[in-house]
């Protein structure tokens, strides 16, 4: 690990000031991703500002939903009574990720900031435009079994690996950020992460030094009919090959509102408004779900080794919607 100066932030604005002042500085919260990447020399900050002691861990009801502190631990968030009762999709997504030990360490803000698990990003002997802009993409014509089928560019075919964010996209979350000017600003979650384009080194739209302080979720009627499906190489403790956050609101036989978000198929959680448009106004049947799945994957362009993700994605969408409808929420 490259040596770095370590300090503990006492308050959020001071932390933002410290990191803004040094282009090679990083915030440290749970450390589950950053410390790992530092050990691998993928991240080489000269300064680490530990924000884990900031008073940003509250989870509370607001006038129009819930506010979840950026520094609340993943495990505390998934198990909070308000989250379990009103946003079970978020609990399910968090609990599908990592292990109990990692969820006890990882924070919600850090979870949004996690970087790709592309092997070429991790291996400093390999080219990677995300790690070393301009060095090329090893995965484009390399081992790309776990890589993107949607929204990629020839500069980067990496995927966003997380689970929690997929649920946040389905729940229309808003990310509250302490800006470098000391003022808060909000970002709709679907505008938080980026597609790679010609700047794959930028995972998201935060400016350097901006700090996530909270995640806000507006009230919704999805709690009774939502499901998080995760498909992976083993039953637990593995990143998704494909995952689906599905949420429905029905009136009578018809679907009134729908959310379909695919995980691990693109550089960001992939909300399919195409699939949602197919679902809304239709009866909640397998035929409707299959039509939605076709719509979601119609633009998929698999690479050499990940063609399976197209069919897997379709079947996963159908199954997730079926399970959401049966009221089974785990």
């Amino acid at each position, binding site marked *: 690990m490259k040596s770095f100066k*370590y300090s503990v932030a006492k308050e959020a604005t001071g932390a933002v000031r410290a990191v803004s002042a040094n282009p090679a500085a990083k915030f440290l919260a749970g450390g589950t991703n950053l410390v790992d990447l530092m050990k691998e020399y993928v991240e080489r900050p000269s300064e680490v500002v530990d924000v884990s002691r900031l008073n940003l861990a509250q989870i509370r009801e607001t006038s129009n939903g819930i506010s979840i502190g950026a520094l609340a631990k993943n*495990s505390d968030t998934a*198990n909070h009574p308000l989250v379990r009762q009103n946003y079970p999709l978020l609990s399910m997504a968090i609990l599908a990720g990592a292990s109990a030990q990692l969820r006890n360490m990882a924070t919600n803000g850090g979870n949004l900031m996690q970087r790709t698990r592309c092997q070429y990003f991790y291996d400093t002997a390999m080219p990677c435009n995300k790690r070393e802009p301009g060095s090329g993409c090893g995965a484009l014509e390399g081992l790309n079994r776990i890589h993107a089928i949607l929204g990629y560019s020839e500069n980067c075919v990496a995927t966003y690996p997380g689970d929690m964010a997929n649920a946040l996209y389905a729940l229309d979350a808003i990310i509250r950020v302490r800006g470098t000017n000391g003022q808060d600003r909000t970002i709709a979650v679907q505008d938080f992460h980026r597609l790679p384009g010609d700047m794959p080194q930028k995972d998201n739209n935060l400016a350097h030094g901006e700090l996530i302080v909270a995640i806000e979720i507006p009230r919704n009627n999805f709690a009774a009919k939502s499901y998080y499906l995760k498909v992976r190489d083993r039953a637990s403790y593995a990143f998704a090959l494909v995952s689906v956050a599905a949420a429905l609101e029905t009136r009578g036989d018809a679907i009134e509102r729908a959310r379909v978000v695919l995980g691990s198929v693109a550089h960001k959680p992939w909300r399919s408004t195409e699939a949602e448009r197919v679902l809304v106004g239709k009866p909640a049947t397998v035929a409707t779900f299959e039509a939605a799945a076709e719509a979601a994957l119609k633009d998929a362009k698999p690479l050499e080794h990940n063609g399976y993700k197209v069919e897997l994605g379709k079947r996963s969408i159908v199954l997730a919607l079926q399970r959401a409808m049966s009221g089974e929420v785990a």
Partner: protein
Amino acid sequence: MDDNQEQQDFDSAEDGSQLSADEERLLDELGLFGVTRREFLGQSTAAVLGTFAFQLLAREEALAALPTAPGAAMAPTPRLENAVRVLLKINGAPQRLEVDSRMALLDLLRERVGLTGTKKGCDQGQCGACTVMVDGRRVLSCLTLAASCEGKDVTTIEGLAKGDQLHPMQAAFIKHDGFQCGYCTPGQICSAVALLQEARNGEASHVTADVRARNRNINLTEEEIKERMSGNICRCGAYPGIVAAIKEVQSGTRTAQTWEFASDERIALAMNPDGKVEVRANEIV
């Protein structure tokens, strides 16, 4: 007489006797205390011990003479870059240390405090061998910066037993053969002990049928135990024993162990090729 008292008595009996300071240090480094130390000494002549100590010192001197590789994590006398002072509690004892900002809690425990029960497996958060409890919750010490542990209360495998009295989870792992090589075991046991509290709290898991239904004091099924312990990998595949151990402690219902030592008679039969030996297909005696 507890272990510490026994060790002190033994150590004081050695004062001014035949062992040199280097030899004492060697025995300490070999982790030989109390009865074990006495037995080791009983089997070793002073000359052998002296040779051991000499070789160890020669090796350390040779290592110390080498230029330190850039980025070397642990030199014989660590020079601290970006030193951070931390005061933390480890197994109830306050520890005040100055650490390199890069040091992981795992390395602090093993290299600075000498608590080598916590194991370094993958060192990148994928195996669970380094699991300890911080403020009562299981975490991975390999991905925890020591510098971030100011004021924290760390419990390692060494902190679970009360003197000679094993923690129930330790005893259950032995009873149910929850390990083979033993390398992942300290992490498995720390993880399992923390799991007991999580179940009491009613925390949900990926296989919980309905996360909206909240119950305290969950009685964990095998499926739940497997999911909740998935962060601890066992390459020997001792999982059935691990699950049985956790199930027994968590449920409070004693269950029979599924193995036993071979009897002398059975061993004798197996050793005698002409004897009539009855060995079941799945059993090695």
